[in-house]
């Protein structure tokens, strides 16, 4: 009993060195160490204060539109065979869960006296959220984005530009998220005194996974109250898509200690489960060091990191965040994946049953449910963390269904 209590604690929070089990840590250059220590100290200093909490809460409520509803998806439930609720993070201003974290970190950066935010983005959702948070809090914003992603997510690029964010194209590597993260880290080493790196997911060196998880935990807190109100009990399972894991960890946060609530994490299967054609790091990766932390990551036999592949830009990262890795390792969380083709079908089902266009990322969780109905029983209550809306993917989706 005592042992399992400790295990829960380790699953929720990293140790002092930033480790969840064997995952995490601070694998960064000495230039960044004082910056990370400063960040950790400031987070611990400001985050628990009632002043910070009130300001954060006010921003989330009045600017972001929280709480987001928990919607009983009656029609979609019929296609699964159990009672499915959608936690509507797509209704958060900006169209995804990303604003939770962006507002929190922007507020923290402001408290720390920084004047500028830098970050990377792939689907553009996090970049857009950062551009919003920067404007709301009066901080300059520069966003690094792979050239491939700039082409794929044109509408979000327009949105970010409209908000006055500087977009810096990343041409190195494959021109995707992994390369943009590397470039943002590089930029940060040269400007950390004035600039905060607003990490977009529960990845990177400690304390980022801890900080992002804390700011996203609002999803799980709301979800718990809402489901208790509607059903009078906890859900049987929570399912979320992810790569770094921020929406999943946010949704799981209030349920980690409750073993009866099954947790599902769905990664990007890509075209197929060939190492060069997928983003399924739990299927095809192994432990390694990327972007400051020891994580499950796609790599070759010598430790060179591989570029992931999936049609969902937001899942196109070769690593899983340290907390997600640990939840998987300890057996607390089940991992699945969905292939691109299945994901497009899932979009269609959600459109036709509920009249909602999901983001391609979110559609991975939907696809998993549709393809694994046998795992969800008739009397069960399942919550799907509906992490984002699909407007940004409209072109890709319509081209897939109707051609050019």
């Amino acid at each position, binding site marked *: 009993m005592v042992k399992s209590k400790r295990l829960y604690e380790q699953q929720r929070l990293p140790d002092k060195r930033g480790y969840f089990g064997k995952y995490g*840590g601070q694998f960064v250059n000495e230039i960044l160490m004082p910056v990370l220590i400063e960040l950790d100290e400031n987070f611990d200093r400001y985050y628990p204060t009632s002043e910070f909490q009130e300001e954060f809460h006010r921003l989330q409520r009045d600017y972001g539109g929280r709480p987001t509803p928990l919607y009983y998806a009656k029609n979609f439930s019929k296609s699964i065979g159990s009672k499915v609720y959608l936690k509507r993070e797509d209704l958060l201003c900006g169209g995804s869960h990303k604003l939770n974290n962006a507002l929190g970190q922007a507020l923290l950066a402001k408290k720390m006296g920084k004047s500028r935010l830098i970050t990377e983005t792939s689907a553009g959702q996090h970049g857009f959220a950062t551009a919003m948070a920067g404007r709301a809090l009066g901080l300059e914003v520069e966003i690094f984005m792979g050239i491939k992603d700039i082409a794929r997510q044109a509408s979000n690029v327009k949105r970010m530009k409209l908000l006055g964010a500087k977009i810096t194209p990343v041409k190195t590597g494959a021109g995707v998220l992994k390369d943009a993260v590397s470039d943002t880290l590089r930029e940060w080493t040269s400007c950390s005194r004035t600039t905060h790196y607003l990490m977009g997911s529960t990845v990177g060196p400690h304390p980022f996974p801890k900080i992002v998880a804390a700011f996203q935990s609002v999803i799980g807190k709301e979800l718990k109250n809402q489901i208790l109100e509607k059903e009078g009990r906890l859900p049987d399972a929570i399912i979320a898509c992810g790569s770094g894991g921020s929406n999943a960890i946010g949704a799981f946060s209030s349920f980690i200690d409750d073993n009866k609530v099954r947790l599902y994490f769905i990664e990007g299967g890509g075209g197929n489960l060939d190492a060069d054609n997928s983003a399924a790091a739990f299927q095809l990766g192994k432990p390694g060091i990327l972007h400051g932390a020891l994580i499950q990551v796609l790599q070759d036999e010598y430790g060179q990191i591989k570029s992931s592949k999936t049609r969902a830009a937001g899942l196109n990262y070769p690593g899983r965040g340290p907390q997600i890795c640990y939840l998987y390792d300890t057996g607390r969380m089940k991992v699945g994946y969905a292939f691109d083709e299945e994901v497009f079908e899932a979009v269609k089902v959600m459109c036709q049953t509920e009249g909602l266009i999901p983001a391609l990322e979110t559609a991975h969780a939907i696809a998993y449910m549709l393809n694994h109905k046998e795992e969800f029983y008739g009397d069960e209550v399942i919550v799907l963390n509906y992490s984002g809306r699909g407007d940004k993917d409209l072109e890709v989706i319509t081209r897939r269904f109707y051609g050019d």
Partner: protein
Amino acid sequence: MEIKEKFRELSEEKEGAYMAHIYYGDPNEEFSLSQIEILVKHGADFIEFGIPFSDPTADGAIFQAACERALRNGITPPKCIQGIKKLRENLDIPIIVTTYYNIPYIAGVKAFLSEIKEAGAQGIIVPDVSLEEANPLLDAGREVGIHVIFQVTPLTTEDRLRRIAAAASGFLYVVNVEGVTGARETLADSTLKLVNRVRKHSDIPIMAGFGISKKEHAAAVVSAGADGVITGSALGEIYQKNLENPEETLPKIARFARQIKQGCIKGYIRRLNAQNISYEEV
């Protein structure tokens, strides 16, 4: 040759040390081998031998491109280790391997250090291993006999500096980056400050890197108290302009090495003179 021995030799000859950093296999192995040969012939006292990594986050654009090209052209860690062996056939000066932690981590840290030791390397720099994560590397380094070189910066706090100096062996790598050093502070000023801070804790040799591309830079930081300088991307910049025939740039590379080495000598003499004056004043 051991690192210590090289520094002793240089101080006897009244010279600052010059370490040249390359990434092996960019654009191909043959060029890297001839580049190193030229660098050594024209003044390099140490070779920092980079084993390319897919995501070199502590390197700038030039070396990032170098890693990418080398990997695209098929370089692997085993080929790099073979390269060190080849170099050792006619090279006596210390070789310091630089790579990112996932490369030794996947090979097994101790196994990797044994291999580079056997091939002929004396030390290793792993720019993405902080002091906090360095124990496996330090343990293996001690066991195998490979110096683990640490980096310090003007932002490194006093407490960290003390702990890093205690863990370091071989030499300390002083990193000066624009934006990290004070806005109007010169390279020499901030190096001097950092060298003096390190000296409070340790008499380990200090090599200054980042942003050194001219004779004057080298002279300035050596006269400020650094035991030597490191040049990296400035070399990459020279041959990257002619990737079709990089061999054609070798005379330029030779000239560059001579300039930097002259700066190291000049800086050392300037420092000695300054010391003499202050002694006389006392």
